């Protein structure tokens, strides 16, 4: 319990510092940060529609946050979730505009499954390269993001494209494949419910299954895993596949729930924002629900803030960057010593 409270204290401190630094930057743009935060809160959570839009903005972040949490928990720095997301999104759109004769629920489950598989397979390459030849996964996953983005753009420009649009996009999916909207006119859709279910499932996997234990141990102490005779290469492969799978589903949900077709370069960087989501949640699946809500609110509120003030849209990204950069920093000197002592007394953490 004390460890848990310690973590909460660290997260609150991290948020306070991040808000403070972001506030300073807002002052630099000659606006009043308190005023900006007030508009943001009012836009993002005060009204029913605002709240629905925030949840809608949080939906892809839950998936990418979970995807990255799985990898980080296993000690794998998978920054390739963006690539899995693009390929997953395209696969979902492909299923949605090709297998048009299937009934809706079959179509939706098939699209989610296929996009997850494609996203997972995409993450397997770096995983295999890592376990077989010790190739740094940060470099390979990041490089493959560019490949995935260019490749999907190629597909919708040359093969599955609808001519006549400035932005390359695919044919639309059939209406039956659309995820139902929960609170129109907002874009909140069934994907949000799926996201919460998956977060719960992942929480269960981490806490109560052998696979979850293996992942946690691999992240905490890779040598221990090796010396215990656990199949460490298999765990890496499985963790990366799961991470990519979730990334792929993230893309599919955006297509089936919001865009209804694949659009080139549609993601504003959900895969990268997922890093902030996962780190802020300390890689805890339930924590991801809260951190993605926070970042979803900021991204959603920012669009209103931008209309009403002079604040450019880069502010949320700056906030996100500060969170990622400072998340592991010991913001209070000596705090880490205390935490280590607490960690020795309590056994769970």
């Amino acid at each position, binding site marked *: 319990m004390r460890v848990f409270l310690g973590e909460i204290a660290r997260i609150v401190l991290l948020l306070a510092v991040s808000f403070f630094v972001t506030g300073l930057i807002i002052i630099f743009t000659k606006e009043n940060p308190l005023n900006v935060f007030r508009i943001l809160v009012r836009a993002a959570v005060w009204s029913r529609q605002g709240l629905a839009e925030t949840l809608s903005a949080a939906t892809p972040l839950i998936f990418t946050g979970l995807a990255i949490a799985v990898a980080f928990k296993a000690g794998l720095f998978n920054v390739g979730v963006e690539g899995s997301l693009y390929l997953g999104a395209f696969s979902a759109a492909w299923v949605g505009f090709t297998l048009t004769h299937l009934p809706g629920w079959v179509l939706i489950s098939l699209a989610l499954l296929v996009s997850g598989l494609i996203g997972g397979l995409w993450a397997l390459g770096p995983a295999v390269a890592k376990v077989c030849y010790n190739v740094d996964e940060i470099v390979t996953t990041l490089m493959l993001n560019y490949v995935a983005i260019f490749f999907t753009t190629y597909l919708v420009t040359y093969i599955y494209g609808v001519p006549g649009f400035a932005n390359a996009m695919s044919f639309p999916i059939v209406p039956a494949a659309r995820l139902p909207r929960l609170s129109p006119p907002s874009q909140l859709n069934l994907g949000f419910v799926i996201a919460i279910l998956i977060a719960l499932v992942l929480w269960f996997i981490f806490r109560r299954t052998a696979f979850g234990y293996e992942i946690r141990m691999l992240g905490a102490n890779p040598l221990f895993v090796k010396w215990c005779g656990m199949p460490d290469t298999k765990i890496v492969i499985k963790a990366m596949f799961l991470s990519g799978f979730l990334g792929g589903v993230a893309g599919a949900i955006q297509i089936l729930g919001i865009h209804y077709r694949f659009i080139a370069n549609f993601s504003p960087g959900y895969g990268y924002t997922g890093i902030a989501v996962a780190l802020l949640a300390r890689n805890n699946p339930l924590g991801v629900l809260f951190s993605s809500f926070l970042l979803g609110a900021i991204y959603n509120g920012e669009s209103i803030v931008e209309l009403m003030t002079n604040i450019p849209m880069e502010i949320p990204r700056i906030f996100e960057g500060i969170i*990622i950069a*400072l998340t592991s920093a010991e913001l209070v000197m000596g705090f880490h010593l205390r935490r280590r002592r607490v960690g020795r007394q309590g056994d769970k953490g």
Partner: protein
Amino acid sequence: MNFVDLVGVTLRQAAPLMFAAYGGLFSYHVGIINIALEAEMLAGAFAALVVTAWTGNVELGLLGAMFAAGLLGLIFSLLIENLQANLVTTALGLNTLTIAFARLLMWVATGSRGAFVPQELPTLPSLRIPLLSSVPVLQAFSGHSILVYGAWLAWAFTSLLLYHTPLGLRIRAVGENPEAARAVGLKIKSVRIMAQLLCAVLCGVGGAQLSLGDLRLFTSGMTAGKGFIALAAIYFGRGNPAFTTIACVLFGFFDGLQSRLQLWTEIPPQLAQMIPFLSVVVTLVLVSWREAHRRVRA
């Protein structure tokens, strides 16, 4: 196919990678895998263009690039040395932050969001090598901006500094065995910060070549993974400056090839654009595969 043009574009594309990779070598040898190369290059690219546009002076722009990147490097190393922050996440955060911050500054200064294209920008001086420029094939090596040649000087600088000076010895000692280095009285933290500063400044110059050398504009996406490609070059060379250089030229070639394929052939541009990134992945895997193979046989 135009051989001279291809060699020229290879040299130009390799130069920023080389600067960043040599910088990264200092980090690598002090025991830090530096993922913030990307951010440091971007800071350099931005500062170089802004300062040059403001002052009308390229030399000041270059200094500005070194300063901005150095400042970022200092922040990075203070975070990891003094606040015990995680290397990877801190660097990733700084990458995100730098992109957003550059866009914010660009918007505040110019009101534009996409790209910053200053009018009447003074050019980086270019170097025409008297004899080479008249020889048919060798003329490919003449007439580039001084930073393209500077990249090769940076190779000499890096090799000399790392392997033939007391500072280089200290850097490698700290990277090899921090405890032993501490035991003989080295100030580990200062050596690490010093190496990180050298790294950042070199990255800044690489960034300046990106914005001032070729395109003469700034967009927040202009580094496009180049910092990570430089890191891949270091992995390729296992920390050896010569092999790292080879990798940079190789990756520079694929980047040049990509742009020329778009000009000369009917290949869909997106497929051509995939080439440099795929080449990095394939090269890294091949090199590591060979390494593993050799270890098994030995």
